[in-house]
């Protein structure tokens, strides 16, 4: 029997794989030591767990263990990378380039640096969500020290051309940082092949625990350094002080190992399910897939159902946990800034639903989702004055709306 509600919000967070939990459990109780305790077996056992996890994480992204800095999650990794690079290299230049579609952790870290004298360029993306490499190249100056562009977008799943981006950054003597939270463990990410200097990843987006993540910091060609953002015991090669979250780190390591072994097959299965979902739902009139269809994560679909408001739609999709680009709950009534960056009109942004499939999504669940979503969209269109006007051939742009 199908169990509801169905979880289709795997871009927000993923359930933890039971195999990860199993790996973590001993580190809460019998192996509880402080990994920094060098003088007794309790500390050694914890350190051993951390060292092994460091290898597992490094292997997944093609790095070496010494290049992995454990953090509390991707927000911390983003902050450490951006603020840490700025502090370390600001004598060299004060210019950073990023995208308007980045995660808030990146955008707000950049805004923080602006107040400290940094010059930040927020590049717009094209209508498919991808950065225009010519615009990136044109934005580079001799003051540019960092290009911060995400690997894959959290709302629409588009994958940026990271190899080309890193080549441009390096050509101009800048470092390349990528927030790869949505990509690592889902698609192949290799810091060497991709030319990545710093990379943020998070445990809970890849079936690991919450509250743990990592920052990859390149050690060779070039050797990259970041100024620590927390003062203390000098853990993690002085870049991130604080007693290590050993169970979390062990869980993150295990999650990375599982992804390394299984993501290729998983991607094939999930993209087939995603395509089925998308194909069926776009059979509905006036529904559109957002983001470049070719350069996308295998498990993410973002669809706008025109003339239906996203939050109202989610209410009708009560058996499914999805998310919407609509922000009717926020006081500002502003829809998703990511969708707006694609040049989507506000009404289409308000009408969007993100479906995030995951390791535990079944075909039965997708079939149910297709049927329920279609029903919900039709129900709301029956209630929608905009749909009626559209059907009567009235151009909605010709109406003078009482803006509020």
């Amino acid at each position, binding site marked *: 029997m199908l169990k509801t509600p169905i979880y289709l919000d795997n871009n927000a967070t993923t359930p933890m794989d039971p195999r990860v939990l199993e790996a973590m459990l001993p580190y809460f109780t019998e192996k509880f030591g402080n990994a920094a305790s060098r003088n007794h077996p309790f500390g050694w056992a914890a350190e051993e767990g951390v060292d092994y996890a460091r290898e597992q994480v490094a292997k997944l992204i093609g790095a070496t263990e010494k290049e992995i800095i454990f953090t509390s999650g991707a927000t911390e990794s983003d902050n450490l990378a951006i603020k840490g690079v700025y502090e370390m290299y600001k004598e060299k230049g004060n210019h950073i380039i990023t995208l308007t579609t980045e995660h808030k952790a990146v955008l707000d870290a950049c805004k923080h640096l602006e107040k400290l004298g940094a010059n930040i360029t927020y590049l717009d993306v094209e209508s498919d969500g991808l950065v225009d490499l010519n615009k990136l190249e044109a934005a580079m100056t001799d003051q540019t020290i960092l290009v911060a562009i995400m690997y894959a977008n959290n709302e629409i799943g588009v994958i940026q051309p990271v190899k080309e981006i890193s080549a441009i950054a390096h050509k101009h003597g800048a470092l390349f940082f990528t927030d790869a939270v949505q990509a690592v463990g889902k698609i192949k990410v290799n810091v060497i092949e991709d030319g990545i200097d710093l990379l943020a990843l998070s445990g809970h987006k890849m079936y690991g625990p919450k509250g743990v993540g990592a920052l990859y910091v390149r050690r060779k060609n070039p050797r990259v350094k970041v100024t620590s953002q927390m003062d203390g015991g000098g853990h993690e090669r002085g870049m991130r002080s604080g007693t290590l979250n050993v169970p979390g780190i062990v869980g993150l390591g295990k999650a990375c190992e599982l992804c390394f072994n299984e993501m290729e097959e998983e991607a094939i299965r999930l993209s087939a399910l995603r395509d089925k979902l998308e194909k069926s739902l776009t059979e509905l009139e006036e529904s559109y897939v957002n983001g470049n269809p070719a350069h996308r994560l295998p498990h993410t679909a973002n669809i706008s159902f025109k*003339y*239906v*408001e*996203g*939050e*109202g739609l989610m*209410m*009708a999709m009560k058996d499914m946990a999805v998310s919407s680009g*609509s*922000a*009717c*709950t*926020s*006081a500002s*009534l502003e*829809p998703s800034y990511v969708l707006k960056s694609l040049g989507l*009109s*506000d*009404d289409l942004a*308000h009408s969007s639903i993100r479906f995030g499939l995951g390791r535990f999504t079944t075909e039965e669940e997708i079939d149910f989702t297709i049927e329920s979503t279609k029903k919900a969209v039709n129900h709301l269109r*029956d*209630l*929608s*004055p*905009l*749909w*009626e006007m559209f059907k009567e051939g009235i151009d*909605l742009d010709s*109406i003078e*709306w*009482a*803006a*509020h």
Partner: protein
Amino acid sequence: MAYSDKVIDHYSNPRNVGTLDKSKKSVGTGLVGAPECGDVMRLQIEVDENNIITDAKFKTFGCGSAIASSSLATEWLKGKSIDDALTIDNMDIVEELALPPVKIHCSVLAEDAIKSAINDYRVKNGMPAIELEKSHH
């Protein structure tokens, strides 16, 4: 955010969904909100010769609270005179549906829709439009 039972009821079983013939002199139509703001309400009333509202219909593009607010408004309008209908206050809707603060704008929009429909009817039938308060949102 959890919705109240009354919002869910109106949302799942909306009352008086539909369209009245807006070309009729006895029908007043109010269309308020804007697609880019995420809600548009169309509320229509049919009024008899004694200025009593005999029928009311709505269609709404918006969240569950917006749909529930307009559905409730149509229920309240039926049987009222157009003067009594003007006394419906958005806070009555907030109270009845137990709307949280972030959804108060939905009730404001419903009140605007009621007034706008009544004014449309009044102007059509040679009465002066009622001065409306400046929109709150």
